[in-house]
Each structure stands twice: as structure tokens, then as C-alpha cells.
């Protein structure tokens, strides 16, 4: 049983999806979804434990040995991301009103849950696999189901947003596929470890350069690296709030992971930063994301859109951490992966609570809810503080490492800019706080959201504080993951 855990991690959600479709019963499928969410968390936790206790796990799918067979590899980084994704999945799937805000005809809920499970399967698969083409397959599995989920938003513009995400996503995915094709041509293998080995002597090959270009652009599209982020605000703003919570906390995170894998495991940091000078491109783009995303967030009139733009900015922090190419920088980026998943997931769930009662996420409609829904509003404020990076929240930890990395490499200007951009978060969080607390409520008889909604929200929000003080599991793991990645890549 434990021998096959890597396969089980993916098969669990992947097989539950068709079961959902077959069962067709709303409550049963719902319970199954929740169970699979927590089951995945248990499996991921166990995998992480195993990966930490010894050498990375290598699992040959179906018993075929690599490089012909598909290999699943779980090292610290993989386990870390697996745990992030499945934690968010477990909590978000448990959220009380998952289908609220989705334009679902009665009796079709099982399909909705099926799509969520497929999405989870894709995300876990992308993380766990050690085969480049397999990444593409899982990428498309998760993307296709997320297009469907986003298109289900009640906003009538939701299908349009999903469509443009589909176009951008498919272009990104196809670029990725093309990149893999070139890599295959150059190396004759699809196994990441093999590729890395053979690429070491191919640093001057133009095929490899082209492959690198296509892969980077494709992944950046899916990761929503500024200025390729255009699809993200619309998609997250118009999807059902729960789906925004799930996707914002997992999808971009896994894409970041794939990018990290590609840079540090397949190509190696020497090639990427030394030869291709990726940091020259990534640093300005990250800074651009941090400022443009945050500035755009300040002027939004819709809370979900505001959070979506803030996500663009936060992705900037992660890619900036990456581009420092140092242990502290990568630690900051990877730690922010977890931290941002927690806070953005929690914040979107808090919005889902508000939407549950008010039916809208427009700031005008949320006026004065601090009085009517104190627990939800407090959750939002706490999450907002984490976004700002107040000490004793997770946001501070990421910022700490990023600034440290900037100072370490003598880039004092960047250190200042990182801090300056985090101030913009104060502006947009304060704006929401003023709406929630200082405006007269539109309808004073709004009640607090039910416990089944509040509990998952506060699990994530509470975690932003707990992990702001206890960092062995976040920054500690991120650090050993970063050391592993940099050690392997150089």
C-alpha cells in the first residue's frame, strides 16, 4: 500500500471524478469530494514525511522502468507543494456552500464536484510526475476542468472570462508542449532527470535555447507572470468565489513549482541565469507585477477583482525570489507559495462568506458589513494584514527572506522596492476595511455566515497567523527544498 502511495495520490481524485458522474447524487458526491480532499492531504502528508526521512522517492508507474516508463519522483520540494495543494483542496472542498455562486441547474451538482476532483488530480499529477510530457497531460487535465468551473460563475461575463482564459491557457499549454518537443529532439528523452543529465553538455545547442524560450513563455502564461496576466483578474473575479479560492491558492502555485523544476532541475541554474540571463528579464517583470498589480488592485470596485490583482502582485514576489538565484531568495519564493496559498485561499473564502449573504462582491454592496458579519469581516482583516506582511503573519516571513536575499546580493534598491510595494497592499486592504467598517450598512438585517462556511475560512486565516510564528513547516521546509534544488542544479 505505502509502496504505491505516489500512484494513489493521483488515482484517488482521478478515479473519484467518474464515480461522481456515475453516482449522480448531490449529497453523496459532495461527501465523496470532501473525503477525497482530506484523503489526498493524508497521502500527501505521508509522502512528504517519507521524502523528508530519506532519499527522494522514485516510483515507476505500471512497473515500466524509466526512461521508457513514466516515473514519479517525490523530493522535499514535491512533497511540500503536494501538501500545499491538498491542504487547500481539503479545506476548500469542506467549505459549506461550495456550489453557491455557481450557475448550476438543479441536479447537476455531481458534475461540478467531478470537475473539482479532476482539477485536483491534474494539479497533483503535475507536481508529482518526473516525466516532462506527463506534466503537459496533467496540465491540460487541470486546466480544462478549471475552464469549466470558471465558466460556471453566476456573473454573465463568466463564460467570456473562461473563454479568454481557455485561449490564453491553451496557447500557454501548447507552447509548453512545443518546448518539450524541442527538448526531446535535443536529448531524446522525456524523463526530467535524464534530460538534466544530457542537457549539461548541450548548453550551446540552439535547439535547447529555443526549447527554453517556449517553455518559459508557456509557463509564464499559465503562471500569469506580468505582463501575461491579463486573463487572471477576469477569471478569478467572475468564477464562483469558492473556485477562485481554490484556483488562486493552487493553480498558479503548481505552475510556479513547474517553473522552478524546469529552471533548477531540468536546465540548471547555471544555464538559466548564467547563460540565458533569465534574471535580467524576470527581475523587472516581477517588480512590474508587484507595482502594477497592487496599483490596479487599489482602484478595483469589486472585491474579487481586487484580490485577483493582488494575486498578480504576489506572483511577482514569488518570481522575484526565484530570480535572486540564492538560497534565501528561493526560500522566500517557495515559502510565499505556501503563505500566499493560505492567505489568498482564506481571503477568497471570506469573500465567499460575504457573497453567500449579500449575493455580490461589489464593494458598494459590502458597505457596513463589519457590524452585521463581524466574524467574516475579522477574517478578512486578518488575511489582509497577512497580505500586507505584518509581523506574526505569514506574509512577513516571505518578505523577510526576500529582503534578506536582496540585501545579501547587494541589491539595496530591490530591498527598498519590495518593502515599498508591500505598502501598496496597505492601501487596498485599508480601502476594504473602510468599506466594511465605516460605511452605513445597506441592509442592517444581514446575518453572520453559517458555521460550516466560517470554519474552513478561519482554518486558513488562522493558519496565516500560526505559520507566521511557527515556521518550521513553511520556511523551514522551503529552505531545505531550496537547498536541495540549488544543490542539484549548480
Amino acid at each position, binding site marked *: 500500500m505505502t509502496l504505491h502511495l505516489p500512484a494513489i495520490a493521483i488515482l484517488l481524485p482521478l478515479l473519484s471524478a467518474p464515480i461522481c458522474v456515475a453516482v449522480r447524487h448531490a449529497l453523496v458526491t459532495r461527501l465523496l469530494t470532501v473525503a477525497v480532499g482530506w484523503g489526498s492531504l493524508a497521502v500527501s502528508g505521508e509522502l512528504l514525511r517519507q521524502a523528508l526521512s530519506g532519499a527522494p522517492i522514485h516510483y515507476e508507474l505500471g512497473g515500466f522502468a524509466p526512461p521508457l516508463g513514466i516515473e514519479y519522483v517525490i523530493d522535499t520540494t514535491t512533497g511540500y507543494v503536494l501538501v500545499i495543494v491538498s491542504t487547500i483542496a481539503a479545506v476548500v472542498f469542506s467549505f459549506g456552500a461550495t456550489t453557491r455562486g455557481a450557475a448550476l441547474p438543479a441536479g447537476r451538482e455531481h458534475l461540478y464536484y467531478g470537475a473539482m476532483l479532476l482539477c485536483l488530480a491534474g494539479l497533483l499529477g503535475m507536481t508529482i510526475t518526473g516525466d516532462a510530457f506527463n506534466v503537459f497531460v496533467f496540465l*491540460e487535465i487541470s486546466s*480544462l476542468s478549471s475552464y*469549466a468551473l470558471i465558466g460556471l460563475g453566476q456573473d454573465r461575463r463568466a*463564460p467570456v472570462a473562461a473563454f479568454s482564459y481557455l485561449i490564453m491557457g*491553451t496557447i500557454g499549454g501548447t507552447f509548453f*508542449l*512545443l518546448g518539450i*518537443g524541442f527538448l*526531446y529532439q535535443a536529448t531524446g528523452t522525456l524523463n526530467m532527470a535524464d534530460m538534466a543529465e544530457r542537457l549539461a553538455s548541450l548548453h550551446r545547442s540552439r535547439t535547447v535555447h529555443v526549447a527554453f524560450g517556449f517553455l518559459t513563455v508557456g509557463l509564464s502564461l499559465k503562471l500569469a507572470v506580468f505582463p501575461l496576466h491579463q486573463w487572471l483578474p477576469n477569471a478569478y473575479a467572475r468564477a464562483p468565489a469558492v473556485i477562485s479560492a481554490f484556483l488562486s491558492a493552487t493553480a498558479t502555485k503548481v505552475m510556479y513549482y513547474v517553473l522552478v523544476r524546469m529552471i533548477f532541475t531540468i536546465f540548471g541554474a547555471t544555464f538559466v541565469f548564467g547563460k540565458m540571463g533569465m534574471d535580467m528579464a524576470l527581475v523587472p517583470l516581477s517588480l512590474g507585477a508587484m507595482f502594477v498589480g497592487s496599483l490596479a488592485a487599489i482602484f478595483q470596485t469589486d472585491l474579487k477583482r481586487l484580490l485577483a490583482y493582488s494575486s498578480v502582485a504576489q506572483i511577482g514576489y514569488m518570481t522575484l525570489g526565484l530570480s535572486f538565484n540564492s538560497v534565501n531568495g528561493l526560500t522566500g519564493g517557495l515559502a510565499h507559495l505556501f503563505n500566499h496559498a493560505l492567505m489568498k485561499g482564506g481571503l477568497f473564502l471570506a469573500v465567499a462568506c460575504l457573497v453567500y449573504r449579500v449575493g455580490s462582491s461589489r464593494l458598494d454592496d459590502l458597505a457596513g458589513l463589519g457590524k452585521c458579519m463581524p466574524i467574516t469581516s475579522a477574517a478578512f482583516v486578518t488575511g489582509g494584514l497577512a497580505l500586507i506582511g505584518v509581523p506574526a503573519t505569514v506574509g512577513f516571513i516571505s518578505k523577510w527572506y526576500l529582503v534578506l536575499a536582496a540585501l545579501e546580493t547587494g541589491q539595496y534598491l530591490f530591498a527598498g522596492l519590495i518593502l515599498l510595494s508591500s505598502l501598496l497592499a496597505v492601501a487596498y486592504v485599508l480601502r476594504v476595511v473602510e468599506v466594511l467598517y465605516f460605511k452605513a450598512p445597506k441592509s442592517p438585517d444581514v446575518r453572520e455566515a453559517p458555521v460550516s462556511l466560517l470554519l474552513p475560512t478561519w482554518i486558513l486565516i488562522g493558519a496565516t497567523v500560526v505559520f507566521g510564528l511557527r515556521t518550521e513547516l513553511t520556511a523551514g521546509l522551503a529552505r531545505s527544498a531550496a537547498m536541495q534544488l540549488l544543490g542539484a542544479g549548480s
Partner: protein
Amino acid sequence: MSTFGLWHYWVVIVLMMIGLYTVIARDNLVKKVMGLNLFQVSVIMFYVSMGKVEGGTAPIIPEQASGPVVYSNPLPHVLMLTAIVVGIATTAMALSLVVRIRETYGTTEEDEIRKLDRAEHE
């Protein structure tokens, strides 16, 4: 090999550019989907041509094989089976979204949709 000798790359590039151009330039959502298809097909062609070995046979070793047999690389072809499935799924997904868009907006032209949205917002 001459520039022309790599003619299959030119096919791929031309197809890809046509596809991308259609996706970007057309306002009609269905045409965008078509462009996307062309784009994906170009990559499939790329893989398929990559596996072809000149003078190679199908990758089945004949029973009375005398000496080494030259055969095409089957792996890229197999991969493309998956990619084709992905392409079909994407197209189906895109078209179903277009159907829903048409149901709510009554049009599949992007600029008209934008106009309708703006009209509702103001």
C-alpha cells in the same frame, strides 16, 4: 541540409502563425477556436515529423530480420495521440462555452459582447 530541406519545419511555422494570427485578430469566437485548432495541429505536425526517420519502416521488427532495421521513432507519434485527445477536449470545452455565451449575449462576436457589457455597466 538546406533551408528548403527542412521544409516540414516551414509547414509547422506557417500553420502556427496562421493559427495564432486567427486567434488574435478575429473577433468571432468560433473562428478563434478554429485558429486555436490550427495552432495545436501545427505542434502535432511538428512532433509527428520529428519521429519520422528517412527510409525507416514501421517500428515493428520483422520476423526474418537480417541485421539492424531502420524504423521511425514511435514515441512522438504515441505522444500525439494524447495531444490530439487534449485538442479535442479543448475544442469541445471552447465550443460549449461559446454556446453559453451565445445564449446569454445572443452573439459570438467579441466586440459586440464587450459593447453589451459596457452598456450594462453604465
